Each structure stands twice: as structure tokens, then as C-alpha cells.
């Protein structure tokens, strides 16, 4: 007899429909599986047979053929155990075939018939919704993650018998309720109010987030660069539902979801070590998986010790940063992962880190130059703003001064984002950091005074077109935070404090 069950697999962070067909016929007893299978899928035959036996279903020796179609898509992972066993039971006549129409099944089996959780559930269930499939049966462990998809009835099973009983109608399961905690209040263990002093660094962080500018910190070790970086997600606006779903898909594919939380509701903060390879950063592998830049989607990617990263690794980020997504091509096809993140980087001004304080810095100027020579154009091009950091003194560190909380700062940023959205919509962009040079004058609305100032600055600092563009973008963001429609002189002047040109000059020690 022949039977058919729907299942799904992953392609990048998107789902794909797979049909599992089973046929049982007379002949020499054998268990044959076909359909471009990876070895872990091929091993399913042993798991399925044993699980069926241990769940109490008799499988008389016959000629069994399992086909996973479409045959030109490589099947990976253990999600097919459940659909294969159900298809087999249907082919043996345990389950009526009409019950299997319109149901999608995913799950790994253990030898005693328990259904185990798998990774990458959300993209598949979301795909099922798009394909108009009304019911999905999946492992109990994955129910929270899957339940966020609307319009689909989710049934979660702990073991094989539950699924069979549900399908035969002897004991039906209840669909899982949508598991989105309404009481979810984004809570961070960190807050900006914990950072004492560091006025200019905080201001730079606020501007950077308000315009989604990439930011570079310069300063000695232990000055609080990482501390500020880590708190940047706390001043970003909350994730929208759609953004949450998109982010959850990426984490689901990588198997990094918190089992207690259905959705990723918090903006990610990723801080890869500088020994990271290009593949781990961008995404890769034989079957490509999202890399760090995708895991930082809608959040912050922090590259501490920027100069220690491999040059080509950083160079690889050029396209993804511009496009907001990365496409990785392999023999089986190309995979696109979203990666719309804010880049933060930190570096020391010299090998020991204390320059320009010459009473502490023990580096010679050739050493310093050699160190800074590692800072390549591709790296600098990635960044929009730079700010220096210095260690706090005792009074600042233990002073009584009350610092602004993340919430206060966030309110200003939400406002600035709203203004930008309205203004930049006609140009097809969202944030000031994306303003193209040809639209700059229209967006900044400079008057004569500002144009004169721009000319003075251009000559004084010997700017390039790119350098000037970055300054004007930042000035636009500062004006937005200031609720000003046009960019004024003082906005441009403040933006100069964060420019990317001439970070270091000769003879600056003290």
C-alpha cells in the first residue's frame, strides 16, 4: 500500500516542503530509503523500525520503500523520523490515509518511541502557514517556538503513540495555545545608569544608535568600552513582532533558542572573539548556517580589539553591511541570511593602550606606528563615528552623581527614529547612516551660514568626500535628537567630535 506525509526541511533560514512517501509491497523483505539523503536521514530506518516495535506496532517483514521528494533537494537532519514512521504505519494500514492530508510533521524519534525536539522549527512552521497547511505535529519541546505562528494549529507530541492515537481519532490532542507572553516587559540586567561619568562616550553611543551609525571606541584597556557596548541594546527601541519572528528564525536554525522563551524578544548583542574565522563571522559551512553578523541581526555586533581581527575577515563584511543581508553560494544553491546590525568596534591607541598619557605609555613611536598600520582602510571604511575613552578617576567612579537611565535615553532615540522614518521614506531608506550623498543636501537643508562652515571645515581638516559625508550624516542625527528640521552650525560642529578622519596626530602626548 502507498501513503504520503508532509514534512519540511531548512534552506538557509527559510523552510521548504518535503513529501515523505512510503510503499509496502510483497517481495523479499527489505527497508529501502531513497531521495538524496544525508547519512543521518538514512539512519532513520533503524530508529523508525525500533521505535515502532517498542511503541507496540507490528511491522511484518515486507518490501518497504521510502521516498523523500523532491528528489533533487538534499535532506539533512533528524526531523524526518516522525513523518517516516507515520507514513509507514499508514502504508501498513494503521492510519487512514485521508487523515494525513493537510498535516505537516516534524520530529526525531528515540528508540523507545519518544519524540525529541529539533532545531529550525519556526522557519518550517512559518513556511507551512504560507503553503496554507492547517495542522502541524511537532515535538513537545518545540511547542512554544512554533506556537507564535498564527493560522496554524500546532499539536505537540511527547511520543509516537500520541500521534497515532490523534490521527486515528482514538485520542485526539489539543492544539497548543499561542505562547506569547503578554506580560513580557523587556528587562535588561544592565542599564546605562550604571556607567559613571564617560559623558562623551555615552553621548556618542546615543547619537550612534539614533542614526544607526557604526561606532569605533578608542581607549585604554579597562576604560569601559565593552561596558558601554554591552548596554547599547538597552537603548535601542523594542523589537517589533515581525522583527522578533525574523530573529527567532535565525536563532532557531542555529539551535540557539531559549526553550522557555518562544520568541527572541531582546535585541542581540554579539561579541565574537578576534580569532574568529571569516566563515563563522559571515556564515558558512558545507550547508551554510548563519554567522555572527546574522546572529546580531537587529542588534549589535561588537568587535573588541579590532586590530587583532584578520584583515580579510573584516573586508568580508563590506557587502553585508551595505546590503543588510548576506548571500552564501554553495553547490546545492545559494542561501540568504539577513544581517541588519549596528557595528561597534573598540581598539587601543597603542600596543600598551595608554597613549597619549606619556607618563604611563611605554611604547616608542615606531611601535605605535607599526600597531596602527594594522588599521586598514577597509576597517576604517566600515565605521561612521569614532570616540575616545579615558579611564575614570576616583571622584567620577565613586561620585554621587545620578546618571541617566537607559529608558530615558531610549525615549529620545525612539523619537529620533520616528522622525527619520518619516523624512527618509521617500528615499527608500530608514536611518541617517544610509543617506546617499546625492540626497544629502535635500535632507540636511543647509543655509548659507552652514554652507560656509562646511567649507571651512572641509579645508581645515582636509576632508575627503567620504569623510565629509559621514560628518554630515552624523550632524543630521544630532539635529534629529535636537528636534531640529534643518541641520544647524552647532550640529555640524558637534559632529566633528566624532569624525573618522585623522584619529591620531603627531606629537599629541602629554
Amino acid at each position, binding site marked *: 500500500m502507498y501513503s504520503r506525509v508532509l514534512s519540511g526541511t531548512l534552506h538557509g533560514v527559510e523552510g521548504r516542503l518535503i513529501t515523505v512517501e512510503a510503499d509496502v509491497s510483497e517481495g523479499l523483505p527489505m527497508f529501502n530509503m531513497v531521495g538524496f539523503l544525508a547519512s543521518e536521514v538514512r539512519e532513520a530506518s533503524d530508529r523508525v523500525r525500533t521505535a515502532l516495535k517498542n511503541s507496540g506496532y507490528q511491522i511484518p517483514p515486507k518490501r518497504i520503500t521510502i521516498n523523500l521528494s523532491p528528489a533533487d533537494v538534499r535532506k539533512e537532519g533528524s526531523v524526518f523520523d516522525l513523518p517516516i514512521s507515520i507514513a509507514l504505519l499508514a502504508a501498513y494500514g494503521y492510519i487512514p490515509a485521508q487523515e494525513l492530508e493537510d498535516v505537516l510533521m516534524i520530529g526525531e524519534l528515540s528508540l523507545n518511541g519518544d519524540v525529541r525536539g529539533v532545531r529550525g522549527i519556526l522557519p518550517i512552521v512559518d513556511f507551512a502557514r504560507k503553503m496554507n497547511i492547517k495542522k502541524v505535529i511537532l515535538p513537545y519541546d518545540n511547542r512554544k517556538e512554533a506556537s507564535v505562528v498564527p493560522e496554524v494549529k500546532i499539536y505537540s507530541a511527547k511520543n509516537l503513540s500520541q500521534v497515532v492515537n490523534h490521527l486515528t481519532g482514538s485520542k485526539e490532542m489539543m492544539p497548543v495555545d499561542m505562547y506569547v507572553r503578554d506580560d513580557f516587559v523587556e528587562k535588561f540586567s544592565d542599564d546605562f545608569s550604571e556607567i559613571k*561619568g*564617560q*559623558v*562623551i562616550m555615552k*553621548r556618542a553611543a546615543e547619537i550612534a544608535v539614533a542614526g544607526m551609525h557604526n561606532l569605533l571606541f*578608542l581607549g585604554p584597556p579597562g576604560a569601559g568600552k565593552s561596558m558601554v557596548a554591552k548596554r547599547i541594546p538597552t537603548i535601542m527601541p523594542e523589537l517589533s513582532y515581525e522583527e522578533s519572528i525574523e530573529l527567532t528564525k535565525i536563532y532557531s536554525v542555529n539551535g540557539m533558542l531559549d526553550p522557555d522563551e518562544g520568541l527572541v524578544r531582546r535585541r542581540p548583542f554579539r561579541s565574537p572573539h578576534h580569532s574568529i574565522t571569516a566563515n563563522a563571522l559571515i556564515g558558512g559551512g558545507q550547508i551554510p548556517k548563519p554567522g555572527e553578523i546574522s546572529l546580531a541581526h537587529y542588534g549589535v555586533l561588537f568587535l573588541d580589539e579590532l586590530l587583532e581581527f584578520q584583515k580579510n575577515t573584516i573586508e568580508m563584511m563590506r557587502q553585508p553591511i551595505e546590503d543588510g543581508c548576506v548571500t552564501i553560494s554553495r553547490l546545492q544553491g545559494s542561501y540568504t541570511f539577513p544581517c541588519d546590525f549596528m557595528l561597534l568596534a573598540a581598539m587601543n*591607541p597603542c600596543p600598551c593602550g595608554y*597613549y*597619549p598619557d*606619556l*607618563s604611563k605609555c611605554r611604547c*616608542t*613611536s*615606531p611601535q605605535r*606606528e607599526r600597531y596602527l598600520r594594522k588599521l586598514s582602510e577597509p576597517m576604517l571604511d566600515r565605521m561612521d563615528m*569614532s*570616540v*575616545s575613552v*579615558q579611564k575614570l578617576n576616583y571622584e567620577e567612579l565613586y561620585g554621587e552623581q545620578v546618571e541617566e537611565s537607559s529608558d530615558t535615553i531610549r525615549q529620545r532615540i525612539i523619537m529620533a527614529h520616528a522622525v527619520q522614518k518619516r523624512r527618509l521614506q521617500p528615499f527608500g531608506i530608514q536611518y541617517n547612516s544610509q543617506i546617499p550623498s546625492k540626497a544629502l543636501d535635500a535632507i540636511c537643508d543647509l543655509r548659507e551660514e552652514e554652507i560656509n*562652515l562646511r567649507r*571651512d*571645515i572641509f579645508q*581645515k581638516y582636509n576632508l575627503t568626500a567620504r569623510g565629509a559625508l559621514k560628518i554630515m550624516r552624523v550632524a543630521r542625527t*544630532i539635529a534629529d535628537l535636537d528636534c531640529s528640521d534643518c541641520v544647524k552650525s*552647532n550640529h555640524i*560642529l*558637534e559632529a*566633528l*567630535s566624532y569624525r573618522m578622519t585623522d*584619529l*591620531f*596626530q*603627531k*606629537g*599629541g*602626548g*602629554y
Partner: protein
Amino acid sequence: MDRELYWYWFQEAPGASRATKLRMIDYFSSPEIIYYALEEELKPFFNKTLYFNNFINSRNEAKILQNYNQLLEKGIRFIHMEAEDYPERFRMIPDPPLALYLKGEFPDPQEVAIAIIGARECTRYGSEMARFFGRELGRAGVRIISGLARGIDGMAHEGALEANAYTMGVLGCGIDIVYPEENYHLFMQMEKCGGIISESGLGIKPHAGLFPQRNRLISGLSDGILVVEAMEKSGTFITVDQGLEQGKEIFALPGRNIDIKSRGCNNLIKMGAHIVTEVSDILEILHSKNVNTVKVSELTDVEKFVQKNLLAPNEKIVYSCLRVEPQYVDEIICKAQIAPQEVCMALNHLTVMGGAVETMRNYYALKL
């Protein structure tokens, strides 16, 4: 061969130190005689056969001529002890150079010359002061001598060039080597409107042993030595010691007592060096004709800048917080007691107007 060429060969000849060569000159009276001297005659001057052989084998006319022409092609002049334009001042020092390689011109021997020297790793105070004294002394007609090194030396030359004054660099490497590279622009300018000398010929790489020898030439060419900034143990003191040996005046610029970068200078003052707070201090002691120049105290004249430029109230406050040493912007914010945005604006506006400099990102100092 020309007389010049014998000297050139003698200067470049390997295997003998300068002291040995001086003794040979004493004995034989001229390089020409040495060139044609019998091997037995020369042998007693060498204690190792290898050195002796090297010396003897260098007597190759074709090669000498080729190298000498190379020198001329590069516009380098070769000046030996007995040449007319050999500086008289070098004849007075205990260990005079046999010959020199020169780009540009020697300083006018009638004019007062001063060596401005100091540490390579200098603070902004040091480099600004070196530039100031280079410029103002240059303006007063004093010849500025220094070592074209990183830090104080380079800044002193730079100051002199700003004043379009004559300045001479004394190298510790081959005359055609630009070291350190960052001073390339100084090398180019000084060839044209100053001078560069070295005791080493083409292609000699800089190494530690050459610098003390160079220092005796720096002090030898000058009437006085001004130490701008030096730590307690600094190579600068080799020059000072040699200067003392040669009977030159020593000047030192005082620094703050706790500042390790100025400790060497302060020690010099304690030991009796002339303390320098004004350009005229130097001019008076060296009996220069011109005494009226800018005073150091006028450098940081806040009032003048404020009067000259119409400053906003905030900018006035911020300007008064600036110092010669770079300060981190948070410190300035803290002192000025104004909102950080306002301080940043003021600082950048002052920078654009020329009242402040940003020495590194977010570090600001008073522009001198």
C-alpha cells in the same frame, strides 16, 4: 687622481678607525702619500691582518672614481679637513671629523648658532617649545642646529623652517638615507634652504654606535646647546657632555618638578645650566645682535585671542579651560560645567578658528 679623491678614498677606506686615520695623517701628512705608501710602512698602524688587507684592497682607482661620481650626481658635496670650506668650528673640537658629506650649505660662521635638542619621545609641551624656540631664535638670526631625529629635533627644525631661517641637520646615518621616514618633508626642505651633513657616506644604515659621534658634531657646530625636554637618562646628555668638553654654553628649559619627561632638564639647571624662559635669555648670553622677539609668556595670551575673535560666552569659558598639554574632552566638560554637546561645539569651533588643536580624537590643547 685628484687630491679630493685621495681624501675621499681615505675617508671611506675600511679597516681603520678615525683615530688611526688621524695618526696616519700625522705620520704621512696627506692621504695621497698614504695611498702610495708601501705596505710595510702602513702595517704598524693595524693590529689585525684582516683590517689591514681591507684597507690595502680598497686602493682601487676605478671604484673610487665611480663612487665619487655617484656622490656628485646626487648633489652631495665632499668636504675634507684641508678643504677651504671645512667649518672652522670643527677644527676646535678634540675629535674633528676627517671629512664631511654635505647637502645644502654650511651655516655662516659669523652668525651665532645654537643646538636645540631633546628626547625623541616628547610631550606636546616639549614639541611646541622646540618649535617655538626654533622659530623665534631663527627669526632672530640664530642658526638652528639639530639632529633631524623624531621628537624635539624635528620640531626645532620645523620651527626654524617656519621662520624661513637657516637650519642644519646632522645625521647619524649615511647622507642619502632618510631616517626617520616621518621627517621626510624636513629633509626635502632643508636640502634647499638649510643644510644636512653627515660623517657617513652613501648607503650607511643608522645604528646605535653612530649617534654619539653625530652628537659631537651637533655641539661642535654650535655656540650653545638648548635642551628642551629630556628624561633623567637620555641620549641628549651625550651631546651635553660633549658640548661641555668643547666649552659650549648649556641652556635648559625648565619643566614641572613632577614631570618625568622634564627631569633631565631640571637636573641640568640644578647643575648650573642657564635657565631659559625667554628667547632673549639665550640671545643675551650668546651676544647676538637681535634681542627683540616674541616672549614665551605672550604665547598663551588668552586675552588676545579672545579679543581678536568674537567668541560666544561658552567658547570663552571652554577656551580658558584649555592648556598646552592635551586634555580629554570629559575633563574639559568637567571643568567648564557646561553641557557636553555645547563643549564639543565650542571646542570644534575653536579648532576651526585656530585657537585649539585636537591632538588625538577628543583630546584638545591650546594652539600656540
